[in-house]
């Protein structure tokens, strides 16, 4: 282990502070209204269900919440008969 590592390791508190600030900013802003991810998820699923039937297993949702930007990735396997090929 290098000296730099030792000094870097000593500074885990700033990492903790940053992680908490991001998390708490998000949680506080969500305390009054329902979870944004949950709302998006439900509404997107409802729209899709209107047109095609999808199994829960065909839907993968991942999220990565960042300080300035978050990504919500929704991966849906739908089976639509291909009209062009028919």
């Amino acid at each position: 282990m290098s000296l730099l590592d030792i000094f870097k390791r000593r500074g885990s508190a700033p990492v903790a502070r940053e992680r908490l600030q991001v998390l708490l900013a998000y949680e506080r802003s969500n305390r009054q209204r329902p979870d944004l991810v949950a709302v998006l998820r439900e509404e997107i699923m409802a729209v899709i269900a209107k047109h095609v039937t999808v199994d829960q297993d065909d839907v993968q949702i991942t999220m990565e919440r960042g300080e300035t930007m978050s990504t919500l990735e929704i991966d849906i396997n739908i089976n639509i008969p291909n009209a062009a090929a028919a």
Partner: protein
Amino acid sequence: MAKVVVVTSGKGGVGKTTSTAALGAALAQSGKRVAVVDFDVGLRNLDLVMGAERRVVFDLINVTQGVANLSQALIRDKRIDSLFLLPASQTRDKDALSEEGVAKVIAELREKFDYVLCDSPAGIERGAQLAMRFADEAVIVTNPEVSSVRDSDRIIGLLDSRTLRAEKGESLAKHVLITRYDAARAARGEMLTIDDVLDILSTPLLGIIPENEGVLRSSNVGSPVTLNEPNNVAARAYIEAARRLQGEDVPLVLPAERKGFLDRLFGRRAA
């Protein structure tokens, strides 16, 4: 078929969540498929200790209620492929968790994993009882301190009466994990000794985790101590405890005061 292990204590703040993350990671590091499940509904923290707090989409309650299926809710660890987290709900209250729902989720986890570690909430109420309900084994996290030992004793009573195994007259293996052990304070007679604790609880010892600042550093950065600082004394103690949990016979050495010159200089163990 997985072994379901509840990590419990009665008292709060003794190290259940820390131990669930560290034991779970240690088991996964040795090649086992592991799921750690946060039962602390409303006060989830295992996600934070595991560094997955920004990736939670679904939670345990969503799965018990059928809003999501298990594979959608499990979050795969970014460092170890075979380690997964099932987070607790932050917004719902603990009454949203039903026994039937938990039974279903645990049964499904059993199929997919080698170990399922259930991080219990503090207390002896419904939440703690649901966390232990379907366990095959229990890790009772205890600090060498009077109120913690007393609460552990009550939890042992519940393990012996309120779990499914107890009700069916089957055995449930129990292990005491002593955490936040301070050898210097024990030497000065300021803390209960290991023997005191084991005598009182008359339950076999899984390991002794020393009080160590590496544990705090690791939760600061969101990584189980066994991953973040594998050579740290607390990490090594957790790795050994995980081996004992798998039935290995690993001799137990009492942590002595090992502070040297470098430690004093930098305030940490030189690994």
